[in-house]
């Protein structure tokens, strides 16, 4: 179990490692509210991404959490909601 926050930079790194980056997209730009689909990531890429987040942060995400998070901001919030209770305990 990790006690650190899941950040946008973590997400960028994990997306690049797990699924690569679309040449037409600036992943380092302002992507917080962009839809994953417009960033070039389909459901399988997000499945791989969530699996990597789970491994690194020692958590288990619900399938719904991943499929319902359409943007980086939504996914980051969802992941941190799993992390925060652990940190406060």
């Amino acid at each position, binding site marked *: 179990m990790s006690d650190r926050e899941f950040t946008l930079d973590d997400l960028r790194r994990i997306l*690049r*490692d*797990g*699924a*690569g*980056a*679309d*040449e037409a997209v600036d992943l380092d730009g302002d992507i917080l509210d962009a839809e994953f689909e417009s960033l*070039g990531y389909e459901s*399988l*890429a997000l*499945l*791989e991404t969530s*699996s990597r987040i*789970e*491994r690194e942060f020692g958590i288990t995400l619900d399938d719904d959490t991943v499929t319902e998070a359409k943007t980086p901001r939504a996914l980051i919030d969802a992941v941190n909601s799993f992390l925060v209770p652990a940190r406060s305990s």
Partner: protein
Amino acid sequence: MQTAVRDRRRTSAGPAVRVAVTGLGVAAPNGLGADAYWAATLAGTSGIGRITRFDPAQYPARLAGEIREFSALEHLPTRLLPQTDRMTQVALAGADWAFADAGVDPAGLPEYDMGVITASSSGGFEFGQRELKALWSQGSRYVSAYQSFAWFYAVNSGQISIRNGMRGPSAVVVSDQAGGLDAVAHARRQIRKGTPLVVSGGVDASICPWGWVAQMAGGRLSTSEDPARAYVPFDAGARGHVPGEGGALLVLEDLERARARGAQRIYGEIAGYGSTFDPRPGSGRPPGLRKAIELALGDAGTVAGDIDVVFADGAALPELDRVEAEAIAGVFGPRGVPVSVPKTMTGRLYSGAAPLDLATAFLAIRDGVVPASVGTRPSDAYAIELVTTRPRRMPVRAALILARGQGGFNSAAVVRAVDD
């Protein structure tokens, strides 16, 4: 509905829509790209050497035809790299080259007018090995989500289809080395049913420890340490084959449509095809290769005397060489036709081998030259005329390509020049 469409097609175009090859994409151990491969092949340059991808010291077979200079990053977007095995990366690049050679931009064509039909013999072994290793050393959460398809036989067809927006009839054929011809024959069938363009052929690449032991289990690998003499079909010293990686992808089109679009080059046509399966061992019935040749000649509406060169399967095991030599001599007469095995310079590429031989045959037709089988000293026990040592300049109008597969597959194809 479907029947009506097919019948209309028959009435308008006749039963024998001719299928032309308009583009070649080649990736071989002795040359990346059709030009480099052809130059190396005519120069007799072999791509066979000691394995570098992993340390082969602990295995009895240590030589392979590796593609040394391919860098996936140079050819593909990074988005594709984590989800593709090496064989798929090579296949995607090969398809790009075939399109460029054909002067076709798939983005500009209707997506249902283009299909992808490839052959596969092993799937993405290297990718699969990495994920299995992760599974057993770290656990299931460390297995890539892309393992769900990256290893799969159909993945080259699928990724070529997605990358180029090709949604017409698509498939994969799995029948070992013979599959390379079976896939092209299936592509021809789909073009005759009305799909204007199909990318077909095959690329295999499984030179990794898992792929290697799987190939060793077949019992046909040469354990020679001498790259020049390890894979010598039709030689008294034949002792199995050297595996290689790579293959070729070909752009196939309805000949009339290719002409109508002003295709810059028509290499020739896929004129005939036949396939058979060997009888059960011990049945006493003859092997099926000769029958496959006769079927292909009949399908092409041609006779043995019209064939200028045979590209043999060249298994390099005495019993299999004997069967092939007898089939060729039986159809063409003793030493009745020049025979070549240019795969002596690449190793056997499994599903990629026959598509590469098809590409080689079209280049031979274009340039009027038959490449040599290098390294082999043909045994007098076989009544075939093997072209060895150096290429032979001669007019080539029609060629027969043979491919077999472990388990009794036999396939034969006839390709020939198309008059302008």
